[in-house]
């Protein structure tokens, strides 16, 4: 059965239902990858256009479909991310303006953690970023990440290790302590 579920492939109601079921997951992945709501919305749109274009090739295995969907989202995000890195002058200023709010006492630590996460993720390339997003934004296990991204388990382990260490170094200032205090 097609993941569109209702009617024949191309049935817009079936497609809408599919979109409703998976839009949150796709958007979250894109947000983790690019850290910008507008770009994440674009990626969401591009991902579902890809789904629609591939509707005749999709079979009914929901789990396999989900893995494929993650993969498409990650790949489209990496494209956006690479393009942005190439034209980074503007976005660097943008990143700086996203810095900390001055009220350490009053802004909630989750928001600080979010800013910290963007700073930390910024030191990773797309490949490393994707394993981090699948693990921490979606809670996937190592073997699930390997199957989703179609890479060996050993590669997942080494990328996660390298990425977490790089981010740990990046975060090793007093701000990290400030957040952990409030956890």
């Amino acid at each position, binding site marked *: 059965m097609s993941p569109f579920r209702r009617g024949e492939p191309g049935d817009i109601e079936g497609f809408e239902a599919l979109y409703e079921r998976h839009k949150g997951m796709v958007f979250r992945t894109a947000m983790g990858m690019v850290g910008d709501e507008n770009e994440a919305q674009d990626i969401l749109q591009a991902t579902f256009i890809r789904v629609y274009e591939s509707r005749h090739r999709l079979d009914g295995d929901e789990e396999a479909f989900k893995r494929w969907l993650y993969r498409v989202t990650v790949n489209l995000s990496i494209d956006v991310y690479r393009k942005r890195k190439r034209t980074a002058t503007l976005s660097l200023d943008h990143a700086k303006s996203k810095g900390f709010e001055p*009220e350490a006492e009053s802004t909630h630590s989750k928001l600080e953690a979010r800013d910290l996460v963007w700073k930390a993720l910024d030191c990773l390339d797309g490949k490393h970023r994707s394993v981090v997003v699948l693990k921490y934004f979606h809670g996937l296990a190592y073997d699930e990440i390997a199957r989703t991204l179609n890479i060996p388990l050993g590669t997942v382990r080494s990328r996660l290790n390298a990425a*977490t260490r790089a981010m740990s170094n990046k975060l090793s200032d007093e701000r990290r*302590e400030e957040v952990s205090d409030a956890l």
Partner: protein
Amino acid sequence: MRCKRVGKKLLFYLDKELTAKEQQAIQSHLSACPSCRKELESLSTTQDVLRLGAQATATKVVPWAWFELRQCLSDLKGHRSVRFDTWRSRAREFVVRNATVQLVLGGALAAALIIGALLSIRELLGPSPEALAARIAADAPEVKALLQGEPSTNDTEVVNSTGYVLSKGPTSEYTLTYVDLVKETTTKQFRLINPTLKGEDKAKATSILESDLLAQRLLRTGWVMRSAHLMPSKLELDVSDNQPRVWSNGSEAGVLLVADEQQWLARIDLLGGDVLDISRVLAPKRSWVSVDAGQSSDEIIRIARSDARVAELIDRGARVTSVSTGRGRMEGKASVLLSLGEERWIVKIDMSDRTVTSIYGVPMATWDKGYFFQPKSE
């Protein structure tokens, strides 16, 4: 096992992605190696930050995204032939192609609008800006987290496209939330800390409490009075001059009674001279606990002073405002708050090797005599 090999496996140890034998070997190495333990803690903190940051990341897809996607699909070359053959699209096509139907429907809509306007223009236009701001603040997870529970809206003001929402939590704590009504998100939230009672006010609150039978019993069995605060029994929001202020009527005091891990809060009517109630406070789970004056705090302050930067601040006239030690995951750590005028610093101490690990300044919200609260201008 050597540190280098252990270091490469610490992440997998944290994620329990090792065999039982390896897990055991790392564990025994960690119990004997402080530097690997430190590294483990650093990785664990990074993971916490990542999880917390992931939680705080926006995950709400804008409602019109679906319509944009539909538009994109129908604009794509080759998709024009795709027929979305449902009764809804057929109906839409019928309306679009048929001028008479459009006219009739248009007329019906205009009539409905006029009738609606006569009945209630507000219901037609959706919620008022105040109601919208209140709903956004009530739904915001960061407000719930600050209040440690479901907020109830106390007062709302809207100036241009910014809403100011005063919310009350289940434990009578208050927050002031700024809401961007265009983006429909919260932009800032402040916890309103109850002003401390001093001098005569404090003495009055204490004497009223001491006349209460339950309080007398608690105090006889080793309970101590901790802090006395002005309770915001009635707060009002005032946004004149675009400066949000929160006013308190100031007739109710709260005195915290503590023993071991337990806390009771006595609410006192300062004008009527009565104790309103005494109830158990379910203490929030915090990693830091304050330390009473005595040997342990002296020791922490001594370690802080041994750092040249802290010594310099104290020489400049900075006072030690509070001393805390870590609990749970933060075991073995301590912090000292220093204040000098409007400036505040937090000094973090590692108690295991008795060193100051970091010092940083903390900007404080502006308070005036504790009777009203005024957030810093942006």
